[in-house]
């Protein structure tokens, strides 16, 4: 069992940028007055000459990043998910994605686990907004090791990428010795044939704990970690639908537009099965400590375990 590292993925992201910048002189980083929060400050400390604070002006930041990419750089532009994908949606769409420019957009403080700041800062739409843009790659890593690998893959990939970062410190569950990240490929974390749980991001570990808890009850749930929301791994989802007959999605995002919809699109086309969606049920969030909110929204181990139990019972 690998050592557990408790860390927010935003911090893993900042560290990864720093490590990658050592050998890659083209990496430049932009932030919009949130460097201390998005953790691009880690990069700023070491590479001040390649870091630019754009101030509280996200639209311009994305446009500047686009111009930088047009001149051959690999710009990374970070802000809170809300402002990066919300305020600057159209700049991402028209100045980055349409010309297929090599810009990486990092959205931190994504989802309700942003916590006390409340609904205005809890973005539950970012994956949906980014997924809707043609050609956009959307990543949502689940722990420290996955974030590091995903950041590396995003830099190596030539084209626009959105990467979702969390505020909340969470336990790692991957083993760096055996972990391997492949863009667009889901990872089976637990084998099973009764039902398939497909989870993404910060709540994957909760789903993993739930699935393990149910082993003792004789429930064999398969668990798939989808770190790449787009392009989604159609093969692994179709196979799961065929072999287990039922799917449960788990995401810290609105059930409209994100993982749930991406999975539904695949099964509707390839192998229609019933899909149960755990996530934010088309509502806004509210203030509160992160774990209390995750619990309220049914995104913690006991809630996920209960849904799995119910679905398996319904199936039988």
């Amino acid at each position, binding site marked *: 069992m690998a050592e557990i590292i408790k860390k927010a993925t935003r911090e893993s992201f900042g560290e990864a940028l720093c490590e990658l910048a050592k050998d890659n002189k083209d990496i430049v980083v932009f932030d919009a007055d949130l460097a201390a929060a998005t953790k691009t400050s880690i990069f700023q400390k070491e590479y001040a000459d390649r870091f630019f604070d754009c101030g509280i002006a996200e*639209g*311009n930041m994305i446009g500047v990043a*686009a111009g930088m990419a047009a001149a*051959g750089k690999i710009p990374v532009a970070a802000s809170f998910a809300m402002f990066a994908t919300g305020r600057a949606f159209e700049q991402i769409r028209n*100045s980055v994605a349409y010309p297929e420019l090599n810009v990486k957009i990092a959205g931190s403080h994504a989802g309700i686990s942003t916590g006390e700041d409340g609904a205005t800062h809890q973005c539950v739409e970012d994956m949906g907004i980014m997924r809707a843009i043609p050609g956009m790659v959307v990543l949502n890593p689940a722990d420290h090791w996955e974030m590091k690998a995903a950041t590396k893959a995003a830099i190596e990939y030539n084209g626009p990428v959105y990467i979702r970062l969390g505020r909340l410190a969470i336990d790692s569950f991957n083993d760096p010795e055996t972990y391997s990240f492949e863009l667009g490929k889901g990872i089976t974390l637990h084998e099973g044939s009764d039902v398939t749980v497909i989870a993404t991001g910060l709540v994957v570990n909760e789903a993993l704990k739930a699935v393990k808890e149910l082993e003792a009850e004789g429930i064999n749930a398969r668990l798939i970690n989808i770190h790449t929301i787009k392009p989604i791994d159609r093969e692994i989802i179709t196979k799961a639908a065929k072999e287990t007959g039922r799917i449960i999605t788990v995401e810290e995002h609105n059930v409209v537009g994100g993982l749930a919809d991406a999975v539904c699109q695949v099964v509707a086309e390839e192998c229609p099965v019933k899909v149960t969606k755990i996530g934010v049920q088309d509502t806004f969030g509210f203030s509160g400590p992160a774990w209390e909110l995750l619990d309220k929204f049914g995104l913690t181990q006991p809630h996920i375990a209960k849904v799995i139990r119910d679905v398996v019972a319904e199936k039988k």
Partner: protein
Amino acid sequence: MDSSEIKQLKILAAKARQGAILGTFHAKSGHPGGSLSAADIFTYLYYKEMKVDPKNPKWEDRDRFVLSKGHCCPSLYAVLALKGYFDWDELTRLRHVGAMLQGHPDMKRTPGIDMSTGSLGQGVSAACGMALAGKLDNKDYRVYTVLGDGEVEEGQVWEAAMFAAHNKLDNLVLFVDQNGLQIDGAVEDVAGIEPLDKKFEAFGFEVIKIDGHDFEQIKSALDKARTVKGKPTAILAKTVKGKGVSFMENQVGWHGVAPNKEQYEAATAELEAQIKELEGEC
């Protein structure tokens, strides 16, 4: 510049205007008014100011041009065709399915287009990014962008202006094509932008006001901009929307309407007469 050089530029600008009329006529849509007002600026930039190589459009050390008022691309396309980036006949397929020349500039499809633009306010930020990249790489290329006067109503323009001044982008030149008209009417009636010179000054720019149809004034402004250190330059160019085609001049209705066959022929003939007259003088 001697008088024959100026005459040559005037002839080229008239041809660029013919290209804009040709393109919008064949497209049955597009934006002739602003294309005509900015044609002299495009002509001067590509023929006198910018270090570019039409045979190698992606040359790393080239000067960059971003048409932030992307809808005025018909006359820019015409200048690029005259420079040899692509065939003049492409203009007859402007906005057609599968065409190289899109309704708004597309850097993926069109040689010579340095940035895809069209959504107002965005090009100027991209120009800032290119200028910053040049500074970072210690390259001496310069970046030029042209905005509409209606476009400066977009908040992003001022975000970009703050960024350009803060980062001392003295390799950036920002033109405002002040033709005074936008879709809904006169700029001053729709959402007044004046005093624009004081605004850009307050945002940290060197500001130069010129007649945007006077090549000597365009030249002296750009020469001056090269000497400005530590801050970007804004050239506020007073222009006439529809310039060069008498029935289009200062008519807000010609913002986004294509000429019909009769109008196309009349406009082309009028511009041809200008060219003939200039050639006669040469």
